[in-house]
């Protein structure tokens, strides 16, 4: 029912055509930098600067191969994966257990704990970074294990917030029945509660993963110029050092392409979860 655009566009069909035209233009605009990135990953410096919008004169994997070695791709990818997976594991495990305990126990104490976590979302990273780095240095954790722990800590607030919102709606009757059947506390949690809150777990993993995978500042402060670098950090130093010889884009473009490729693949395979995760994360906050 209804013809929303009639008075303005002189008909439903025409207004729809205009809509698709505008959307397609925006789609092309959105993809432009990526297309641009791909075509220039197969060109030499001179060709990139001379004719950045054209397809490569001749097709060669040389520049990609060179970037592959320059940013130590397999090693950096491995470290980034390791960091992301382990910190996600810590975040999911600790925050879901904590949120469960907070929502199930009655009284003011759990509310106070909850409010502490939520209030901490107001603290920007810059407010803690210098003392945190000095602490981590003192205890010998200015390395990958330390980085994983720090991501665990920074991911806690938002995740607990999301889990609490969801667990509140989960009835506690089943848990009571399981307890009477003689299940232990961890059995109750992992067999009954955890499967029920799976959709929030997906949201938590996605929201934290997008940030951890692409983060620059924390690895920069923690790992710096050490041998073990994440993808983003390798890319950063590749750009910085190449800049000394006048910005060889022939290294930067393929390096950027390689570094974003894993995320693009993951996104395209799991996109419906991403859409759901973001929407749910937003609705709850």
């Amino acid at each position, binding site marked *: 029912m209804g013809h929303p655009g009639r008075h303005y566009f002189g008909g439903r069909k025409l207004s729809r055509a205009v809509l698709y035209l505008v959307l397609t233009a925006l789609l092309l605009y959105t993809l432009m930098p990526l297309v641009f990135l791909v075509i220039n990953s197969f060109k030499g410096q001179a060709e990139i600067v001379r004719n950045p919008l054209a397809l490569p004169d001749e097709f060669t994997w040389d520049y990609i191969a060179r970037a592959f070695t320059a940013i130590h791709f397999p090693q950096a990818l491995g470290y980034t994966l390791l960091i992301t997976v382990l910190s996600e594991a810590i975040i999911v495990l600790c925050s879901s257990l904590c949120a469960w305990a907070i929502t199930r126990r009655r009284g003011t104490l759990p509310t106070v704990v909850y409010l502490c976590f939520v209030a901490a979302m107001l603290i920007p990273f810059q407010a803690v970074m210098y003392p945190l780095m000095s602490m981590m240095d003192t205890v010998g954790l200015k390395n990958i294990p330390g980085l994983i722990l720090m991501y665990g800590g920074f991911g806690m607030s938002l995740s607990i917030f999301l889990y609490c919102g969801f667990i509140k709606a989960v009835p506690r009757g089943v848990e009571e029945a399981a307890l009477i059947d003689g299940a232990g506390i961890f059995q109750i949690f992992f067999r009954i509660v955890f499967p029920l809150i799976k959709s929030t777990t997906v949201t938590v993993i996605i929201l934290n993963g997008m940030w951890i995978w692409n983060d620059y*500042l924390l690895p920069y402060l923690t790992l710096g110029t050490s041998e073990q670098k994440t993808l983003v950090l390798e890319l950063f130093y590749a750009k910085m050092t190449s800049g000394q010889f006048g910005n060889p884009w022939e290294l930067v473009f393929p390096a950027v392409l390689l570094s974003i490729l894993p995320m693009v693949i993951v996104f395209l395979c799991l996109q419906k979860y991403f*859409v759901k995760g973001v929407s749910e994360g937003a609705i709850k906050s």
Partner: protein
Amino acid sequence: MDRYYKRWFWLLVLPAILLFVCIIALPFLIGAVYSFTSWRGTYFAGGSLAQSFVGLDNYRSAFANEQFVHALLYTTLYTVVAVIAINLVALALALMLNNIRRGAGLFRTVFFLPNMLGGLAMGFVWQFIFQVVYTELLFSPDGILHVEFLRYMTQDGTKALFALAIMTTWQSAGYMMLIYIGGLNAIPGDLYEAAQIDGAGPVRRFFKITLPLLMPSITVVLFLTLANSFKLLDQNVALTDGAFGSRLIALQILRTTQDITPPNYGVAQAQAVIFFVIVAIISLLQVWLTRRKEVEF
């Protein structure tokens, strides 16, 4: 059952609280204390912690530091521009996608895609786009359209602000669009039908139904874009690295320790505390203001 939950409470919350205290609460409190001392990163100028208290000196020198004050203003301006741009684009995209059926999934995926890609990585690509494609091809005198403002955008403080906004709009409008789509879908369709029967036109329907009922989503998006813009760092590093007076506050705090020799971490920490206070005030104000305007249905 209550007693059972109570018995296990501390064991279940302990790992999370431990991480939280060690990684956030403790450094935050230590940082607040250090901002009143002559902290140098690894030691205190003047001896022990107790001997190195300098009162409000660090805060005074933070506000006396031209770069810091400039970064504060610059960040505020950037935030205003970016919040408006991202919100309008995101809302427009959501409204358009809500009016089509075929291909909506594809459009949604593509608009969201840039958000998945690192700010630093894509910042390098955009740096080249601004420096070469915008400057020498699209908007040069021999280009498609001669717009001097859109040329050499990374080599001028004012233009760099808009360059940043162009890039971040490209990157995060798709994310905010998803939130708006969620909000639009939550509006009951019969409200529109009723309004139409009553003779309300599309413009009136938008302002009387869509906008008020979208307030919860608008709160969320405003809050998110405001916080993200204020804390922006990666794109700033990638596009200009703070050159030509284009430092945002996050980068300013990071570089303060490199600006002065020997590095004065006390001053940097004071800047960080000021930054925290501003972020906290904005966030609380924002939530409070928009909560009042939300419509229940």
